[in-house]
């Protein structure tokens, strides 16, 4: 429904924008307050980096998020491509399987993980990767599936194999680049969910960024607010950059065309 913005629509968007931005601006102000609420400094942000537990927690989170992304792409790209090419009749099964993690509450999965997983796995924080793969699967499946439907997959595969490429070569050199923006979207959503996940991390007793932030709040609420504001804004910046990537890409291509 493309029509000009009516005055009512403008009012809705402005009021909504105001309501949604205010808490974050207020939180940003709070995070900059000085000791005892006097004046404004960056002290709360520097406080974070002085904490002994902070950088291990941050690196644990980053490591788990990166591994989850890798594992998920490694599993889901071949599966979704395979289902679209040769395993059509399993498409419905895969789709339903990928929906279930949205249906089942994460807390229920966490309690199951605690009693069902072997001790060797539970003793390492890498356990979380597998569960992050599960909880991100619905979003990643959807993104990749939409991406693959937008390209003419059979034609590409046929062309590639008639030129002598093996299946793996076709996957890495032809299909993955063709669904570049969908892959990027999948990477982003997995990374964002993994970095912000709390329920599994705390219930399985691992020390990630989010559990560190909640523990720190008992000592210094200003610090916890600062880390929350920091993480929200950094993810937003990443996302806005990401949202503009297609725009930037097409702009660069146009530039290239004009140069050539």
């Amino acid at each position: 429904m493309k029509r000009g913005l009516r005055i009512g629509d403008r009012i809705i968007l402005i009021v909504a924008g105001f309501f949604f931005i205010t808490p974050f601006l207020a939180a940003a102000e709070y995070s900059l307050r000085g000791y005892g609420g006097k004046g404004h400094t960056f002290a709360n942000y520097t406080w974070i980096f002085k904490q002994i537990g902070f950088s291990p927690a941050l690196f644990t989170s980053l490591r788990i998020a990166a591994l989850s992304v890798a594992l998920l792409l490694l599993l889901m790209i071949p599966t979704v491509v395979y289902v679209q090419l040769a395993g059509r009749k399993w498409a419905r099964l895969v789709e339903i399987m990928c929906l279930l993690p949205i249906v089942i509450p994460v807390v229920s999965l966490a309690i199951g993980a605690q009693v069902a997983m072997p001790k060797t796995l539970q003793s390492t924080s890498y356990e979380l990767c597998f569960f992050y793969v599960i909880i991100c699967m619905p979003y990643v499946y959807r993104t990749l599936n939409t991406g693959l439907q937008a390209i003419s997959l059979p034609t590409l595969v046929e062309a590639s194999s008639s030129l002598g490429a093996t299946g793996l070569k076709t996957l890495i050199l032809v299909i993955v680049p063709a669904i570049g923006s969908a892959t990027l979207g999948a990477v982003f959503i997995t990374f964002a969910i993994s970095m912000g996940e709390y329920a599994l991390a705390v219930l399985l007793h691992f020390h990630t960024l989010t559990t560190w932030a909640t523990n720190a709040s008992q000592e210094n609420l200003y610090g916890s607010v600062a880390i929350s504001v920091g993480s929200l804004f950094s993810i937003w910046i990443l996302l806005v950059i990401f949202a503009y990537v297609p725009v930037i890409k097409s702009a660069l291509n146009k530039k290239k065309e004009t140069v050539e």
Partner: protein
Amino acid sequence: MSHTPVSRAPVHNVGGSVRAFKKFSFLGIDRTFLGIVPFLALIGYFFFYPIAVVFNRSIHDSHNHLSISTYKALFSGDYRAAFIGSFELAAYSMAISAVIGAAICVALVKTNGNTKRVISAIAGVLTSTGGIPLAFSFIASFGQEGLVTKALLNIFHWDIYAGAFDIYNFWGILLVYCFFQAPLMVIIFTPAVENLKVEWQEANETLGGSRLQFIRHITIPVLFPAFLSSCLLLFASGFSAYATAAAMSNGTIPLVPLVIGNLVDGNVIAGEANQGDALAMGMIFVSIIVFAFYAVVLRIARKK
């Protein structure tokens, strides 16, 4: 969110390897099944197996005898209160967020690409990473010392703490929930609003219909199934969310996920070892019922 994958004719000539692969069969199952085995293995071991263990524990009592005593306990005392609390929180946040989110959707689809892209990006972050950062942002802005609280008091002379509201109680959590539920509504409801065709509005005008008639006879009937199914998703999301409530209340508010969290953390009363599992199964049952309704609504919508 589109729920209809574009169906394509099966591909037969995708190189010889696929064709040769398809010829084999094992125990009556097509060999093409092998391609999704890694996927099924992972989701089976890390998803279905833990849930099955929870189910199995929930139907045994502390002496390892088959029993439904843990389920009976769900209908009395603190556990019943927790389910009621979770229902209320999910229902209130669903109702408020659905209305706000739908209004934003209607306005948003008329904006140009860049505005829409930025707003949906922000909505995406709020819904997917929400949790902990959102909780602390709200404690900071709506807490006793928060900027919003002070501004409302000084400018509008409205003391939000005069009534029942406290950022650490039910109403505070409800407020925060709306801030990730409304963006979720924007994300899942936008595709439906985008499907409203300009031609319909033009046809309505040509036929002499007013804007009110357009809303009454076209917009509402067309969007209603999508609205209802979005509401169900919001309810499920509000019912099962854990992080925000856990960070804001230290587990003191009666909500099912928080009670489960407390039980898992070792505050187990003797003889109730499997109570957490029954609560978890209770949440799963509620979610399955909600999603069953969701599937029914979608099916009805497609038939229309």
